[in-house]
């Protein structure tokens, strides 16, 4: 037996020639694009962008057809159209992020996140007053919504996955319908059902009720998916040891799905954190701290943004943009939390 060293290679990787061809196809497409845009009345970055997408699709197909025939062209077209879809979505997301950061960062200062608007108004110069009251208000609302919606959502999901009772089909349908409820309707419902009929006035608690209506279907459906992923082997193992169904669910199924249920909660939070419409009728407004969730209006980030953009002065608009940035950061922190909590559980397995 020879003992020559075997070098690892990648025979399937693109050869320099392949890469040169790809590069030339891109360059040719760019050249054609420039030609087309200059030669026609089309103008601007957007024109270059879309003409390039189209030209590259055609030019690269011509490159491919020589080597791989019609089958290769179809494959290449499908791959590129998928890529275009991903590019468009990323562009939308990054545009929003970019707009928020570039517009919002100018209004950020220490006072903005450590003070309230009690002694300042939207029309004061930037640097006076802040939105801490709204940050606290939003967190307060999120907490109330979690307390109401997460138990209800998880219990509903348990009914659908574990008990599979006679009403399961109907409830599944209702949950789906509920996830399509426009958010303004949730606010109007609380307004019509509670504020018009009881002595309760707009407060953080009522806002939380309205947001719970939106959060429950998200939590339910995510929790349901997670619970369905728990292998039925585990349920049977629990039951086969003489456990009741309740004990099996409490000691085996829920712990096995724990990280997924946390993710369900945080996805629910992300769903409601930026909702404005339902809050307009239900939480009222207030520009100072209100730590009582049951009495009095409460400032929240979405309502501050809504009011600021509607006020019409550059200072108010600047404050609104900065508040959007703060809201994005709050939601981002929650997503990061979801990811870390989820992956920590994953590593254990």
């Amino acid at each position, binding site marked *: 037996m020879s003992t020559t060293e075997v070098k690892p290679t990648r025979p399937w990787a693109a050869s320099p020639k392949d890469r040169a061809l790809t590069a030339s196809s891109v360059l040719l497409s760019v050249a054609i694009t420039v030609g087309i845009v200059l030669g026609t009345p089309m103008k601007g970055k957007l024109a270059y962008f879309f003409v390039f997408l189209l030209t590259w699709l055609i030019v690269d197909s011509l490159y491919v057809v020589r080597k791989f025939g019609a089958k290769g062209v179809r494959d290449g077209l499908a791959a590129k159209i998928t890529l275009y879809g991903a590019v468009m979505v990323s562009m939308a997301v990054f545009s929003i992020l970019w707009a928020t950061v570039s517009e919002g960062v100018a209004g950020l200062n220490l006072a903005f996140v450590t003070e309230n608007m009690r002694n300042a108004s939207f029309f004061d110069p930037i640097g006076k007053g802040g939105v801490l009251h709204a940050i606290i208000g939003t967190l307060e609302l999120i907490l109330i919504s979690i307390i109401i919606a997460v138990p209800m959502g998880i219990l509903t999901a348990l009914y659908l996955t574990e008990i599979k009772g006679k009403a399961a089909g109907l409830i599944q349908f209702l949950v789906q319908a509920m996830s399509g409820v426009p958010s303004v309707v949730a606010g109007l419902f609380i307004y019509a059902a509670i504020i018009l009929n009881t002595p309760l006035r707009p407060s953080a608690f009522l806002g939380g009720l309205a947001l719970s209506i939106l959060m429950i279907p998200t939590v339910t459906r995510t929790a349901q998916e997670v619970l369905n992923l728990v292998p039925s082997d585990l349920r049977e193992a*629990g*039951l*086969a*040891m*003489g*456990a009741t169904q309740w004990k099996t669910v409490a*000691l085996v199924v829920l712990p096995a799905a724990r990280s997924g249920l946390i993710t369900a909660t945080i996805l629910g939070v992300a769903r409601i954190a930026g909702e404005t419409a339902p809050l307009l009728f239900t939480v009222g407004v207030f520009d100072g701290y209100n730590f009582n969730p049951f009495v009095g209006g409460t400032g929240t980030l979405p309502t501050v943004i809504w009011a600021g953009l509607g006020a019409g002065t550059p200072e108010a608009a600047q404050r609104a943009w900065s508040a959007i940035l703060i809201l994005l950061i709050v939601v981002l922190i929650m997503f990061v939390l979801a990811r870390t909590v989820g992956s920590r559980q994953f590593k254990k*397995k």
Partner: protein
Amino acid sequence: MEIQTNTEKNGTQMSEQNRTTPSSLSDVAAKRAEAKVAGTTPLGTGLEARGVHAWFSKHHALSDVSLDFSAGTVTALIGPSGCGKSTFIRTLNRMHEFIPNTSMAGQVLLDGKDIYEPGIDVTKIRLQIGMVFQKPNPFPSMTIGENVLSGLKLAQLKVSNQEELLEECLVRAGLWNEVKDRLGAHAGGLSGGQQQRLCIARALAVKPKVLLMDEPCSALDPGSTLRIEETISQLSKSMTIVIVTHNMQQAARVSDYTAFFLSDGGPGQMIEVGPTNEIFSRPRDERTENYVTGRFG
């Protein structure tokens, strides 16, 4: 392969010369029968199935199985896939009813009492008739030690000395030496064979009288299979074991009695039951012989 009708299946008329039973299987079974310690006294009246039928919605999966499992014996259920072995074993501790739209008929007597009697506490039945599944299924959120003792919490039992029970169960399942230093580790880190023995230890912790094993080694390598078989031999001294297996060598190695199940397109039936060495050397039914000699199945 032509399947004989019931009237023709008088096995005693089959001549000895026609038989091509592999001597190895019957030898193994005979050796096992000799090795079985004489001191295994009956532990009770055991488990008896009386005319058990089972359906999956309208599909009649199992027809009229009557089978006694004497206390302190190991009974192997063999037969081709889809013959109702697993369905049968699941009727023995009332796990069959967890599949939606199933039904059953007949009686299953544990110590002379029908476990399907109306008003009986089904959780108490499953406490006495434990089960080990085909795929190892330790609870992922629990440590090794918690897994073994999980039955206490699940069935709400009180045990004075949990440490002692933990060690006893792991020793009996043949896993103690491998895990005694890492009882606090998560069960997912064990190998497949270790996980399956952990599941056996877990089933033992609630002190069942009967242990049902549904192809416990089908997902395991030969080495782990051997360990599980040793475990079964140890356990059989103190409890009744029913094991479903596709591995006839395994049936010959571990069981005292073997029952052969077969479905001829209709519902699965039990064709024949007898001492394991007889099933593998002198089966009464030609279909059993064809199956154990590997001519079909």
